[in-house]
């Protein structure tokens, strides 16, 4: 049997089930108790679990993440929330120098089982300081795992894997996908970290996307299909470690690759995908790999400008056509 949930409800349900399953799981972050989270992803949890396990914090991002690390070392499985990815900038030391390295620095001893959840990407008119997505940074940091689900099913399944896992996971929730629904099995399931998913098979070109760009890429694929171009679309889902195999296999079949993400182009994770694929599938490539991304620009608040700056479906179509 199954039920229907939005992305944000799927997040809450994953947390709820894991908290019931494991008393060491708890949640901490800003405005996530009574308010249910600035983006509504923790609604209902306070009523169910109380203030001891659903912990509202002051505006202290370094303490949120640093306490989560200490709590994990002390045997708990914290789920820390940083309200917006833009503010992950504040706790980068905790993430990069402490959390990612604590196990290694300690001779491989402690398990840093914690999740840092954050709302990412733009698209709702919040302007330059509230619309960014820094997945490329986190993937550059050995010791972390990074996931970004694109639908409620994966949101729940990946979050469960992250919570149950034995390593620190950055779990990124794309802003504009939170209200999208999907069918969720009633029974317990997980989605493995490290596996991409082929969302649509195709033979002419591979499109690898994550976050908001996945849906735009699938739409683009529809349009392209009507013009006789058969695109294969891959949802990367786990950004680090990357499922290179699935991508390379696809490119070996199609001979062409477009990578689409919402983060800024230069230094974005699209570069990593392109660099890896051209190395591993050089002889299969019939055309240059194209990247679709936000140009190297800030994201304006004005909705028309925002839409103009962020990559849309047409940019994916354009990129595909330029190489097919």
């Amino acid at each position, binding site marked *: 049997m199954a039920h229907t949930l939005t992305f944000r409800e799927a997040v809450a349900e994953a947390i709820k089930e894991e908290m019931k399953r494991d008393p060491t799981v708890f949640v901490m972050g*800003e*405005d996530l*108790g*009574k*308010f*249910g989270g*600035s983006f*509504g992803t923790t*609604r209902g949890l306070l009523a169910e679990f109380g203030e001891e396990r659903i912990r*509202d914090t*002051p*505006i*202290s*991002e*370094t303490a949120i993440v640093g306490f989560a690390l200490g709590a994990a070392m002390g045997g708990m499985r914290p789920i820390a929330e940083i309200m917006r990815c*833009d*503010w992950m900038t*504040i706790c980068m030391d905790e993430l990069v120098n402490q959390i990612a390295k604590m196990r290694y620095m300690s001779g491989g001893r402690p398990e840093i089982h914690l999740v840092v959840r954050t709302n990412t990407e733009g698209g*709702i*008119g*919040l*302007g*330059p*300081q*509230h619309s960014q997505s820094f997945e490329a940074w986190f993937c550059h940091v050995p010791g972390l795992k990074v996931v970004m689900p694109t639908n409620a099913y994966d949101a729940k399944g990946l979050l469960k894997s992250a919570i149950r896992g034995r390593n620190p996971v950055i779990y990124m929730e794309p802003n504009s996908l939170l209200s999208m629904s999907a069918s969720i099995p009633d029974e317990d399931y997980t989605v493995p970290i490290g596996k991409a998913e082929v969302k649509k098979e195709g033979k002419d070109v591979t499109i690898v996307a994550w976050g908001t760009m996945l849906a735009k890429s699938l739409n683009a694929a529809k349009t392209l299909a009507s013009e006789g171009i058969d695109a294969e679309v891959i949802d990367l889902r786990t950004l680090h470690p990357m499922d290179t195999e699935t991508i390379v296999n696809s490119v070996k079949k199609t001979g062409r690759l477009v990578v689409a993400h919402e983060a800024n182009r230069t230094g974005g994770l699209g570069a990593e995908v392109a660099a890896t694929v051209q190395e591993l599938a050089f002889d299969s490539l019939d055309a240059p790999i194209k990247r679709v991304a936000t*140009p*190297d*620009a*800030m994201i*304006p*608040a*004005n*909705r*028309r*400008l925002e839409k*103009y*700056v962020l990559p849309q479906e047409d940019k994916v179509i354009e990129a595909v056509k330029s190489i097919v």
Partner: protein
Amino acid sequence: MTITKEKNKTTLSKDQLAEMYHQMVRIRNFEAALPDLFLKGLVVGTGHVSLGEEAVAVGAISALGPKDFVISTHRAHGHALARGSDIKIILAEVFCKATGCTGGKGGSMHIHDFDRYFFGTVGIVGGGITIAGGLGLAAKLQKSGQVCIGFFGDGASNRGTFHEALNLASLWKVPTVYVCTNNQYAMTLPLCNNCANPDIATRAASYNMPGYSVDGTDLWAVYETVKKAVDHARKGDGPSLVVANTYRLSPEHSLRTSSDPTTKYRPPGEVEQWWAEHDPVKITRKKLIDMGILTEKTATKIEADAKKEFEEAFQFAINSPEPEFGVAFEGMYAPEEGGK
């Protein structure tokens, strides 16, 4: 450490006081209108209104000279208006129109007015506290005699930046006055779950600077205290921390969150009671009339003028064009040509 509770004093002239009331009313009109305009889809993204904080904005900023610096927060409209910024330009920015102060690229969280040394708003809570210290440092190094006010909220006072900035500002005796608008909430978190010691002014002791706790609904108290701190700074005696205690009369933290009906986190009746007993605009009006500075008639005239000004601003903003696509990529870097 000095923690004093300031009493009303009147070094202010009648004209100044009438003008300060005028400013408070301008802010009130502006902020009161926004929730509705947001629901109508005119305000882009989000916005934070400062109902209940008018006396803090006007009292503090009136203590500055025209070339003094101001750094504000995500809740900036009142500060800009108190600084004398053109209400049309501010409203147009809140609507993200081409005529706004950033041309619609920043919106409500990025208000500035460089001509008035209003050096902008920072959407990252607590992000401006260090910048305000740096502006003070620039003034000090250039011996310009300028002073900087750095506004921030009770919630922001728990960011590490607060600690680092106030310590450094004090060590270097920079002319920065830190004004904390304690509206008793950080988003949905009440002060007591926010600050382990809710008497935020106490923290000044950690930095060996004067700390003041004042009634933020009391225009006189705010003005006189900030003035004292500004004079102290201008003399070269370094920074101060002024905590102005008031209440967030706005229905919700932000325009965006107010559209969400599930957000009940304030005790029932609390907002209504503060409106009834501690509305700074009402309090100021009554006091000014009692003092004979305003009459019912002059007060009503101020209010009517302000209403009219806002109505004009509204027409301006709504009729302003959307920005051209091309500007989206402008203004990221200064052209290197013609540099030093």
